[in-house]
């Protein structure tokens, strides 16, 4: 840690807390299960996604993918493609515009966001199987595809490193894991483990996973002159893409506009500034016309990375009473040297449980693969699979109810950060969930419940994801008619951003919901962090809160120019916003409407821009959401088939903005967790590094019949450190799910599966 970082962190710890957000007590729209505001657009086909814009004169691009993992393209025969009908150009390293090499995401600055720092089609080298080696541009989609199939490549292939199994011994410890130390030791965990009366020591494996958002990545780009670039892109972060494009094309950021009004699911896969966006912008520059590059499903598998394969060791030493004396969690994951992303699988273990001694460590092996990237709850999803499975194994060893064990290991302070928790009510989530799920009827003894050919089991696991906030901006424009527009460069991928932010803005401004608009999805709007890491909602809430405060202060100043004002002599702190205006908190009848203030001031509107503060609270406290995942599985004794029969997620995730959209997000995470546990697995050929099941027919995401009724409970306890007391909830739903299923499968069958996905062959 640098001296500066240490200073900031020390200062943060001594900084007094701000008062909890007063709106927590007086919210009106926040907390209501309103329908999403863009629902009508989405059920009528009116919501327009990236590939659906149609600038005049647009042409189509189709990439050509390498078939080797490592080496050089010796000869690229583009003649047949060039003479194919409708073809305008074939882009190869020879004629590709010279570009600046993209920069990997820098977590200190968080402005550029490339997943890989390879040069983009600048030379003949190949770094993964599936890398783009040429791009065809043609008048129609069909012509581009046909011509792309006519490009022939000969290679000088090197022996790439593509097999995880064969290269594990080359593992190295990364310099850091998302800016955190790769290894933490408290006490001597190995020694404590050896002397512990009860021990669990096991290895947990999970495969490569793919986001598989139903909208494939798409870009439409066009240029105005040489230095103005317009891009529609299915990105999770318009601003990060704008900044990255500016870097790569050596342009001023102001000259680039990136728009993404609707994004068809991202789950982390649309954050990393992948090649398709760069290639599309380059193609548009070359042909001087708008270009659409919509990846095929295969294309998504080829050039957009997913979640790394992982092998994790968790070892627990415990007393007979269930106190942990040793907690060891080490993880080995894959990342290519051009991505350098060690998936943070040990992160949950750093913050979850009390232990006498702790050892967490991460290692990576650098393979010649497409860049791995964030996928829903990166780290925490696979990390909780390992640690929550191990805890269940310990409960079995102790013959103790697993929820009782969670009580025994509940910490008073964050074990590695050594701070207080801002808000942690995990045990309450367990208890509410247990009552609702009827957990007490579960039999501790495996194989003790059956229904015909089906063995029935119950499992539980902890869900965990940090509550992150980044500084951001917002613009609020109050019109003379008393309506308002709130603007932020946010992204909507289905989380219900516009709905939740409108509920908040209406309450914050004291306006009826129908008087407020929310504009988003455009890099020209005030800065927002990426829609990722469950940080967007919380960050925009804080930015809007700061901006509305600024607006109210300016309104008060304007109003107090009138000597007869009912707010004469009032200070900002004396005011509340309600009923379309500002009122004295102590004297509810004294106030003035926004319309009146602007009328008296002779202003057609008042517009202010504000920014939220640096997230010092994240340094002072351990801030996270928690949950307890309960499930019932049925395992067919004859076939080994696993069906999830019942699910309950009980969550402690702060104030819930909108229970309807929140429930959907949490259910969605649980559904993805069911896929992770039972059916999903990206298969990589250990010789060629080629992804073999590169389609939705081969990569099995859960279908409707795989998913049971899913009930969701909320503690709904506000976090005093955040705007509205809210937390982001995009990731936490998936965490703990795979472990809960594995634990239930053990309870049903007596078989412990430590190797995801839990397919039937592992149970026979």
């Amino acid at each position: 840690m640098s001296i500066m970082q240490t200073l900031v962190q020390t200062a943060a710890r001594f900084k007094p807390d701000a008062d909890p957000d007063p709106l927590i007590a007086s919210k009106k729209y926040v907390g209501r299960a309103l329908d999403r505001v863009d629902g009508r657009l989405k059920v009528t086909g009116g919501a327009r996604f990236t590939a659906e814009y149609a600038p005049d004169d647009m042409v189509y691009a189709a990439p050509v993918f390498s078939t080797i993992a490592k080496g050089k393209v010796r000869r690229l025969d583009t003649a047949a493609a060039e003479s194919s009908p409708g073809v305008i150009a074939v882009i190869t390293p020879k004629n590709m515009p010279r570009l600046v090499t993209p920069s990997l995401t820098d977590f200190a600055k968080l402005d550029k966001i490339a997943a890989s720092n390879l040069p983009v089609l600048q030379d003949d080298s190949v770094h993964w199987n599936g890398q783009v080696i040429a791009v065809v541009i043609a008048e129609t989609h069909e012509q581009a595809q046909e011509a792309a199939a006519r490009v022939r490549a000969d290679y000088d292939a090197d022996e790439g490193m593509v097999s995880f199994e064969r290269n594990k011994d080359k593992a190295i410890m990364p310099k850091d894991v998302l800016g955190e130390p790769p290894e933490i030791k408290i006490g001597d965990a190995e020694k404590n483990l050896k002397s512990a009366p009860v021990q669990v020591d096991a290895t947990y494996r999970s495969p490569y996973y793919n986001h598989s958002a139903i909208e494939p990545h798409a870009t439409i780009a066009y240029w105005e002159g040489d230095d103005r670039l317009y891009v529609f892109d299915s990105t999770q972060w318009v601003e990060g893409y704008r900044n990255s494009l500016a870097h790569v094309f050596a342009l001023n950021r102001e000259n680039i506009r990136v728009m993404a009004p609707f994004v068809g699911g991202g789950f982390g896969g649309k954050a990393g500034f992948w090649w398709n966006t760069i290639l599309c912008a380059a193609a548009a520059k070359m042909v001087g016309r708008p270009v659409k590059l919509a990846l095929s499903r295969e294309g998504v598998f080829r050039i957009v990375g997913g979640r790394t394969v992982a092998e994790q060791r968790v070892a627990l030493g415990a007393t007979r009473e269930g106190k942990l004396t040793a907690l060891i969690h080490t993880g080995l994951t894959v990342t290519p040297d051009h991505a350098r992303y060690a998936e943070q699988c040990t992160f949950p273990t750093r913050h979850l449980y009390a232990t006498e001694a702790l050892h967490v460590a991460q290692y990576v092996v650098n393979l010649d693969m497409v860049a791995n990237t964030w996928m829903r709850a990166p780290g925490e999803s696979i990390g909780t699979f390992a640690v929550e499975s191990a805890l269940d194994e310990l409960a079995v060893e102790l013959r103790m109810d697993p929820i009782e064990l969670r009580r025994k290991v509940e910490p008073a302070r964050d074990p590695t950060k050594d701070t207080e928790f801002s808000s942690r009510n995990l045990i309450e989530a367990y208890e509410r969930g247990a009552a609702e799920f009827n957990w007490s009827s579960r039999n501790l003894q495996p194989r003790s419940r059956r229904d015909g050919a089906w063995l029935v089991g119950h499992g539980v696991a902890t869900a965990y994801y940090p509550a992150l906030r980044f500084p951001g901006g917002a613009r609020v424009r109050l019109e003379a008619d008393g309506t308002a527009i709130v603007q932020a460069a946010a992204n909507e991928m289905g989380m219900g951003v516009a709905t939740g932010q409108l509920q908040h803005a209406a309450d914050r401004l004291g306006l009826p919901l129908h008087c407020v608009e929310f504009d988003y999805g455009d890099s020209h709007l005030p800065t927002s962090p990426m829609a990722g890491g469950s940080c967007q909602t919380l960050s925009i809430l804080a930015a809007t809160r700061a901006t509305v405060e600024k607006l109210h202060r300016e309104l008060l100043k304007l109003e107090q120019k009138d000597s007869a004002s009912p707010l004469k002599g009032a200070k900002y702190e004396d005011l509340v916003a309600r009923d379309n205006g500002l009122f004295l908190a102590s004297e509810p009848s004294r106030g003035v409407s926004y319309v009146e203030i602007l009328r008296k001031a002779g202003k057609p509107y008042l517009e202010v821009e504000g920014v939220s503060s640096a997230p010092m609270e994240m340094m002072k406290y351990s801030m996270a959401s928690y949950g307890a995942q309960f499930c019932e599985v049925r395992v067919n004794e004859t076939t080994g088939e696993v069906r999830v029969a019942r699910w309950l997620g009980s969550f402690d995730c702060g104030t819930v903005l909108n229970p309807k959209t929140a429930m959907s997000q949490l259910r969605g995470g649980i559904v993805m967790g069911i896929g992770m546990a039972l059916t999903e697995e990206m298969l990589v050929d250990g010789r060629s590094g080629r992804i073999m099941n590169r389609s939705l027919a081969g990569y099995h995401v859960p279908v409707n019949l795989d998913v049971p009724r899913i009930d969701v409970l909320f503690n709904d306890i506000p976090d005093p450190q955040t705007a509205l007391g809210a937390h982001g909830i995009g990731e936490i739903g998936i965490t703990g799910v795979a472990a809960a299923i594995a634990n239930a499968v053990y309870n049903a069958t007596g078989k412990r599966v430590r190797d995801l996905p839990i397919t039937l062959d592992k149970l026979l």
Partner: protein
Amino acid sequence: MTHSQNAELERQAAESSVAGPDNRLRITLMVNGDRREVEIEPRVSLLDALRERLHLTGTKKGCDQGACGACTVLVNGERILSCLALAIQYTGQEITTVEGLALDGSLSPLQQAFITHDGFQCGYCTSGQLCSAVGMMREFDDGVPSAVTADVASGTIDFSDTEIKERMSGNLCRCGAYVGICDAIREAHSEVHSEVHHAGESR
């Protein structure tokens, strides 16, 4: 394909002006009650004809290989995957896309139920889910059994959640809105049926 459709195709092929080396044909598609002329190569899928030529972008492309269901449209009331269909095969047939599900600007009970039950998040698979559900309910009402129908001989099938889920399992939703989708379809189906029942009684 029926004989008359073949004849229609042949007639159109004969009439069509061949525009250059790519053999484009001028065909007429009946989409949501409108006659839409489009000039395309024979290899153009119905999905791409709708999205890229007619700019009816409500119908979505998720995989282009029949694995996700996002491109589902209705042809003469039956659900098909428009990515696996050639546009020229569907001249003269009644094509309904998501844009045609609302009547005179008011949402169908199914569309409204999807909103009420939050049967989507990002909305990308929603058009396919909706068209698929319309076709599925018709199949169900016609007595077509599914893989989970217990007793095919009994003549009556219970519109259970398992039936709904099985029959909707060709439509992937990666946001995982399956619970809401199932709730919405159950409600819309019972609403339509109580209306039919009600109308019968009042006569």
